[in-house]
C-alpha cells in the first residue's frame, strides 16, 4: 500500500514551525509514509520528526495566501506550521489527516521500523508468563499454570497461559468462563508473599435479572480461601451501576451464593466518562485567560483529579484487605479490562517493592495490562484533541500512570524509576515506533506476529543508556508496603504531562540536575575515600612497621 497515494505534496519549502519554548524555525517540510519532518535548510538537521500516529487532530487557518496548520498531538503538544501557498497547505493538511488516521494496524510504523540500536535482550521474551509462574512456584504450590486458553477460544482477551488454583481443572474453567463477562474467569493477579493472600481479577458474573448461578465459579474462588477465612470482592462500580448491569446480562455475586465473600462497591468511572474528563482537563490547562477562578473551576469540572482519587482509594482498599486484613481479594468491574486493571496494578505498586523497579514495572505493565487484555489500540486511538466522536477511546492507562506518579511524589525515594519513565510509557502507549502497545489482546498480538515483525519497547528501554536516563537518583530499596495518602491536598496535577507544553520546565530541570549533582558528587567522594583506604591498607601490610599504633 501505497502511502504515496495519500501524500499529495511530499515536500514544501519555506515552512515556518512554531513550537512551545523553542525558537521558530524556517525549513523544508517533508511528508513520508509515517513521519512529518521539518528540516532547516542551513545545516540540514531535522528540527522536527513527528510520527503521523502521534497526531490527534489538525486545524487549518488562512490569512491571504499564507496557510497555517495547527497540529495537535496525542502527547498533548501543539505545534503550528506556516505554509506558503494555499494549495500546498491544503494538500499537506489532507495528507496528514489521511496518514494519521490509517485504520489498518499492519500499516503502522512499528512494522516498518528497523532499530538503529543493537538489541541485546529481546523485550518480547523478557516477560513470559511461564517465567513469572516460576517465581510464584518458589513461594507456593497452590497454583497451576493452565493452558486452557492456548488457542484463545475460552477467553479471547486472556493470554494462552493463566495461573489458577491448583485444584480447579480446565473443564471447570471452561464452565466458569461462560459465567463471566468476556469469558474472563477469575485468574491470579498477585500473590502476597508476606501472608499468602492473593488478588484475583475477572469479568463481572453473568447473573442476569433472574440471578443465574454457577457452582463452578463459586468453587473456583472459594478454592483460594483459607479454612474459616472470608475474602473480599471489590466491584469497581457503584451498587446502582452494578444492579443496572443485570438487565444487560451482567450482575454481581450475591451474598446467598457467595457467603464467604464480602462485596464492596467503589465508584470508578467508565471509559467514556474518563475520555470526556481528559478532554476537559487539557482544555483547562490550555486556557489562556489567566483567571484563577476560571482555572480552578475548570480543573474541578474536568473531574480528572476525582478519578485519580477514586482509583487510588480503591487500590488502597484492595491492598489493605490483603496486607492488613489478611484476606484474599477478587477485583472486577464490568469487562474486567479497564478499571479492574487500574486497581490490581496499583495495589501491586503499593504492596510489592519489586513493582517499583524499572524492570519490575515493565513486568507489571506486561502482566496486568498487555497480557491481561487491556485494549490499548482502542483506548489510545485518540487523545484529548480529537474532533471525532469517541468510540472506544479512554485514558485508562494514562490515569494509571498518573496514580503511580502520585505515589512516586509521596514516596520519592522508593521507586527505582523517575517521572520520565512514566511520561515515556504514556507517549509510547499513544504513538510509538515499537510494537509493544499495538493490538488489543494477546490473541491479536499473536495474529499480527508482533514479536516477529516489530521491535519491543522493552528491547530499547532495557539498554544501559536508557536505564541510566530513567533511573531515579534518590532510589533506595524499600521493602515496605507504601500507603499513599488520598486526601485532596495530597493529590497534585501531573504537571509533567498536562502542563508540559504550557510552562517552561527549565528551573525544575535545573533543580533536578542539581539534585543529581549532589548525589553523584557524594558517590564520587565515597569511591575516592574507599580507594585511598585500600591503598593504605596495602601499604600497611607491606610494611608492618607502619601499622597504626
Amino acid at each position: 500500500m501505497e502511502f504515496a497515494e495519500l501524500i499529495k505534496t511530499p515536500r514544501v519549502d519555506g515552512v515556518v514551525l512554531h513550537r512551545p519554548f523553542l525558537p521558530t524555525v524556517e525549513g523544508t517540510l517533508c511528508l513520508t509514509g509515517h513521519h512529518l519532518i521539518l528540516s532547516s535548510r542551513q545545516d540540514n538537521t531535522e528540527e522536527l520528526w513527528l510520527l503521523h500516529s502521534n497526531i490527534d487532530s489538525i486545524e487549518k487557518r488562512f490569512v491571504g495566501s499564507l496557510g497555517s496548520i495547527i497540529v495537535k498531538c496525542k502527547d498533548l503538544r501543539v505545534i503550528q506550521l506556516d505554509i506558503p501557498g494555499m494549495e500546498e497547505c491544503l494538500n499537506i493538511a489532507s495528507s496528514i489527516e489521511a496518514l494519521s488516521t490509517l485504520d489498518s494496524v499492519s500499516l503502522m510504523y512499528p512494522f516498518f521500523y528497523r532499530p538503529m540500536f543493537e538489541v541485546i535482550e529481546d523485550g518480547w521474551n523478557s516477560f513470559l508468563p511461564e517465567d513469572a509462574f516460576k517465581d510464584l512456584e518458589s513461594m507456593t504450590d497452590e497454583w497451576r499454570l493452565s493452558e486452557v486458553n492456548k488457542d484463545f477460544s475460552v477467553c479471547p482477551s486472556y493470554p494462552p497461559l493463566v495461573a489458577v488454583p491448583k485444584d480447579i481443572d480446565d473443564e471447570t474453567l471452561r464452565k466458569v468462563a461462560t459465567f463471566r463477562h468476556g469469558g474472563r474467569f477469575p485468574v491470579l493477579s498477585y500473590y502476597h508473599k508476606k501472608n499468602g493472600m492473593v488478588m484475583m481479577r475477572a469479568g463481572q458474573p453473568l447473573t442476569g435479572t433472574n440471578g443465574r448461578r454457577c457452582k463452578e465459579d463459586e468453587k473456583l474462588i472459594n478454592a483460594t480461601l483459607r479454612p474459616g477465612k472470608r475474602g473480599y470482592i471489590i466491584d469497581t462500580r457503584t451498587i446502582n451501576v452494578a444492579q443496572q448491569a443485570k438487565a444487560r446480562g451482567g450482575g454481581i455475586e450475591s451474598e446467598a451464593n457467595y457467603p464467604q465473600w464480602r462485596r464492596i462497591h467503589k465508584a470508578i468511572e467508565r471509559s467514556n466518562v474518563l475520555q470526556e474528563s481528559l478532554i476537559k482537563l487539557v482544555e483547562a490547562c490550555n486556557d489562556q485567560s489567566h483567571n484563577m477562578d476560571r482555572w480552578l473551576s475548570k480543573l474541578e469540572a474536568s473531574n480528572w483529579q476525582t478519578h485519580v482519587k477514586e482509583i487510588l482509594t480503591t487500590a488502597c482498599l484492595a491492598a489493605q484487605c490483603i496486607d492488613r486484613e489478611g484476606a484474599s481479594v477478587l477485583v472486577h468491574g464490568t469487562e474486567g479490562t479497564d478499571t479492574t486493571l487500574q486497581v490490581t496494578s496499583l495495589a501491586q505498586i503499593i504492596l510489592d517493592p519489586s513493582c517499583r523497579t524499572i524492570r519490575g514495572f515493565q513486568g507489571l505493565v506486561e502482566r496486568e495490562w498487555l497480557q491481561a487484555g487491556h485494549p490499548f489500540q482502542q483506548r489510545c486511538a485518540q487523545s484529548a484533541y480529537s474532533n471525532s466522536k469517541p468510540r472506544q477511546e479512554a485514558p485508562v492507562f494514562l490515569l494509571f500512570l498518573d496514580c503511580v506518579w502520585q505515589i512516586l511524589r509521596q514516596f520519592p525515594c522508593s521507586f527505582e524509576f523517575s517521572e520520565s519513565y512514566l511520561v515515556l510509557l504514556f507517549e509510547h502507549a499513544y504513538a510509538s515506533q515499537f510494537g509493544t502497545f499495538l493490538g488489543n489482546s494477546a490473541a491479536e498480538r499473536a495474529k499480527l506476529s508482533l514479536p516477529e515483525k516489530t521491535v519491543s519497547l522493552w528491547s530499547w528501554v532495557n539498554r544501559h543508556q536508557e536505564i541510566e536516563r530513567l533511573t531515579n537518583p534518590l532510589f533506595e530499596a524499600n521493602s515496605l508496603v507504601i500507603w499513599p495518602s488520598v486526601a485532596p491536598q495530597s493529590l497534585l496535577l501531573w504537571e509533567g504531562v498536562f502542563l508540559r507544553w504550557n510552562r517552561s520546565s527549565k528551573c525544575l530541570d535545573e533543580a533536578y540536575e542539581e539534585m543529581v549533582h549532589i548525589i553523584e558528587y557524594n558517590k564520587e567522594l565515597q569511591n575516592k575515600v574507599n580507594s585511598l583506604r585500600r591503598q593504605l591498607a596495602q601499604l600497611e601490610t607491606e610494611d608492618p612497621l607502619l601499622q597504626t599504633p
Partner: protein
Amino acid sequence: MTLVLLFQVENVKLLDRVSPRRSRVGTLYLTATHTIFVENEAGVRNETWVLHSLVCSLEKQAATSSGYPLLIHCKNFQVLHFAIPREQECQDVHLSLQRLSQPESYEELYCFSYKPNVDDEERQNEWDFMNLKADYSRMGLPNAHWKLSPANRNYKVSDTYPADLFVPESATPPVIVGSSKFRSRGRFPTLSYYSKENHAAICRSSQPLSGFSARCLEDEQMLEAILRSNPCSDFMYVVDTRPKLNAIANRAAGKGYENEDNYSNIKFQFIGIENIHVMRNSQQKMLEVCELRSPSMSDFLEGLESSGWLKHIKAVLDAGIFITKAVAEEGVSVLVHCSDGWDRTAQVCSVACVLLDPYYRTLQGLMVLIEKDWISFGHKFSHRCNHLVGDPKEVSPVIDQFLECVWQLMEQFPCAFEFNERFLITIHSHIYSCQYGNFIGNNQRERIQLGTHSLWSYLWTNRTDYINPLYRPDHSQTQGLLRPSTAPYCFKFWRGLYNRFDQGIHPRQSVEDYLRTIQEETQQLEDPGGRLHWWIHHQQPLSAKSTRQQRPHPPAPGLEPDVHLQPLQQQRPRVGDCRLELSFTPQ
C-alpha cells in the same frame, strides 16, 4: 525554665480528625503559658504542647459518648480536638484558656516570661544581630541622591514610621513635614529599596488626603524629588495597590489617590489587591476547606476556588512583578501605597524586593527584608495577629500572604532560595507565638523589647535546619531578578502550612531531608578524604626508609589513617520519619 502548673485533667481524649482509631487518651495540663497533653500509653511519652498565645479560638461542642468536646484552633493552623470526661472540667479548661489566650496587656505576653538559658549580655547581642543600616549601605546608601533623614527621630512626623528614613537628597525638612501632613497617618513617601545598578527606587507611603480636589505643594515637590533622584528616568510610577473602587470611595472621606494632573511626570496605576477584611474572610474560608473531615476532590477544589485565596495571592505577586519590571527593566522609580501603607504596601514592596534582589532570597536577606518592610515600617503585627485581645476586624493574614508568595516562588525556582519551606513556617509560627520580641507591638515607637529574645538570632544560630540543599550562590537561578509565571496553574495550595499538622497527607519521604543528609555526609567525606590523601602522600617515600620516628604528623589533630566511615546511609530519612516537626518545647 519552669512551668507554673495551674491544674490538670485526667482521662482526656485527643481525637484524630481523620481517623477516630488514632485517638489518644492522656492527661491535660494547663500551665501559665502552655496547654500540654501527655499521652497515657506506657513507654511512650508522647506530648503535645500548645502555647496559649497561639490559641486562636475555642469551641465547645455538644456532649458525645466520649465526653465534652473542646476544639482549639491555633494560629499556626493546628486544630486540637479534646474530649473531656466531665462537664465541669471542660468548663474550667474552656474558661481558663479563654482568659490565658487573650492577654490584655503586652506584659502578659509569652516573650516576657520566655527565659532560655542565656545571660543578659548574650541576649543583648541577639538584638544587635539585625542591622538595617547595613542593608541600606549594601544598597549603596546614603549617596548623592538619597540621604538619611533625621526628621522622624522622635516619631514626631509619623508615629508609625521608623526613626531612620531615607529621603531624596533634595527633600528639605519643610517638604517632608508638608508632605506628611497630606498623607494618612503622616506616612510620607520614603525609600524602601534602591537599585544601585540603575538608580531606580521603590518608595512607599500612605494615601494622599486629596479628597475630591485638595492638593499639596510639598507632596508634589516630594514626588518631584523622588523622580529627580533617578537621573536616568523622566517619569515615575505611582502604584495604588487598592481596587479602583475602594480608592474612589476613600475620596469621600477626604483621602484618595494622586491626580495625574497635579503631579508632574507621574504615571498612575491601580492594582486591585483586596483589603484586610476580604483577606481575613478568604483565609477563613480556605481553612474551613482544609479542616473538612474527608472532603471529595470537588469539595476541596470548589472550596479553594470560592475562598478566593489563590486569586489574592496571585494579585499580590502580580503587583510585585509590575514593580519589579518598572525598576529592573524600565529603570523607573515607583511609589507604592494603599490606604495606610502598612499592609498591601508592605506586601508589594517586599515581594518586589524578593524578585529583584538575590540577597533577599538568602536566609539573612529574608530576615532583613521582614525587619525592613514589615517591622520597621509599622506593619501592625499585634493587631493583625491578634497578640492581645482586641478588635477582631483588625486581624488579617497579610504577612501570611507575603510568606506564601515567597513559597510560591520557591516552588517555581527551587534553586533560587537559600532557605527552605521550614524557614518560612518557623517564621510564620513565631510571628504569632509571641515567644520572641520581634513582632510585639504595632510599630517601632510602641515596641518594647526589654528582656525579650530575638527570633532572628535564634534562626541564624540554627540555620543548618533551614538551608535549601539545592541552593548554590553561583547557580544561574540565583542571579539577577526572578521572572515567575503567574498563569493560574502555577499557584498551588500550600499544604505544608495550612495542613501542617495533618501528618497523614504529607509526602512520606522528603527529598530535601535526603539531600541534606547526603550533603552532610559529603562534607564529612571531603574532610577525611583530603587528610587521607595527605597521609598517603607522605607515607610512601617514608615506607621505603622504614624509619618510624620520622613519620610526619598529620595535619589535623586526631587523625589516624583509619578514618571512620560509618554506614551513614542508614541515617538517611526513611519512610515515616521525615516529617518536619516544630514545637515550642522550652529549651
